[in-house]
């Protein structure tokens, strides 16, 4: 199943078997793409939306000097550009960070869902609102946190997002991004990122090495990044240790 990670472990919403089947049938094609491939450019008309199955993608905006600011990172299970369905053109670029596998859903198929399945449409809407919630958290991160706080917040967020789709064991996850990507996410330089990662390691909070992240202290890392997971709408299992540590 291609859609098994979509909205997995999100509170207040889960897809029924029928809805999942409809979404599966709406997929016209599954593609693999190389790392560092731009799949949509700002202003270009789009007629498909993309569900990320494997790998990591990002949305980004370049400044006038060509310096990139990542404004979102997409993980498996995310609809990368569902916004393009009503908007038809995006105001930012979308690219792969790693090699990825994606499912393509033509907007015509989404039109059909929209006109025949209001509850599934609401759930698709939920997923775009989840993106909006994350954007608000990213604004907070860049506007209010120092460099260590920004990295701590991002890694805390990513830890929970990946755990929700079974790509983190709760302490360790593969994050196929470079230190340079992390800099562009957190709006700091590579030198700054290097120092921050050293500091987080020395404080016993986390280790980021070769795109592998070990969270040594989930609660401490969240505290350092002022991370409150409410905006992710994660449905914690009753025996999930993060339920106590983060809520």
């Amino acid at each position, binding site marked *: 199943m291609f859609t098994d990670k979509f909205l997995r472990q999100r509170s207040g919403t889960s897809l029924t078997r029928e809805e999942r089947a409809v979404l599966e049938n709406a997929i016209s094609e599954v593609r693999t793409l190389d790392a560092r491939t731009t799949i949509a450019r700002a202003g270009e008309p789009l007629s498909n939306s993309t569900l990320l199955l494997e790998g990591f993608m990002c949305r980004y905006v370049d400044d006038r000097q060509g310096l990139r600011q990542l404004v979102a990172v997409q993980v498996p299970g995310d609809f990368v550009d569902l916004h393009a369905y009503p908007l038809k053109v995006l105001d930012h670029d979308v690219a792969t960070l790693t090699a990825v596998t994606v499912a393509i859903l033509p907007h015509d198929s989404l039109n059909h869902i929209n006109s025949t399945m209001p509850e599934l449409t609401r759930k698709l809407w939920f997923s775009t609102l989840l993106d909006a919630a994350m954007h608000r958290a990213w604004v907070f991160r*860049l*506007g*209010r*946190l*120092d*460099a*260590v706080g*920004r990295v701590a917040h991002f890694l805390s967020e990513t830890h929970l997002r990946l755990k929700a789709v079974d790509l983190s064991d709760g302490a360790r996850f593969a994050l196929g991004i470079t230190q340079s990507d992390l800099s562009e996410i*957190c*709006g*700091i*330089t590579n*030198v*700054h990122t*290097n*120092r921050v990662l050293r500091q987080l390691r020395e404080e016993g909070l986390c280790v980021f090495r070769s795109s592998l992240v070990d969270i040594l202290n989930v609660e401490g890392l969240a505290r350092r990044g002022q991370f409150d997971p409410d905006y992710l709408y994660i449905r914690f299992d009753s025996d999930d240790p993060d339920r106590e540590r983060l809520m």
Partner: protein
Amino acid sequence: MTQRYALGSTHNQPGKANAEAGVVLLDGPHGIAITMTPYAALETGKSLMEAAAIAQTQISEPPYDRA
């Protein structure tokens, strides 16, 4: 926007600067996280000191908050 938020955006805690790999990293106060060349850091430092001296003359009691 409430007065609390307006006051909250004026920082009374200093930032912390560190030298690393030939550049200056400034962390804080609050959401500030920038990297400067030594030249930019020196000039920013001078500018900050000059502006701080003028700002002190613009207020009465207390001259500034060291807390």
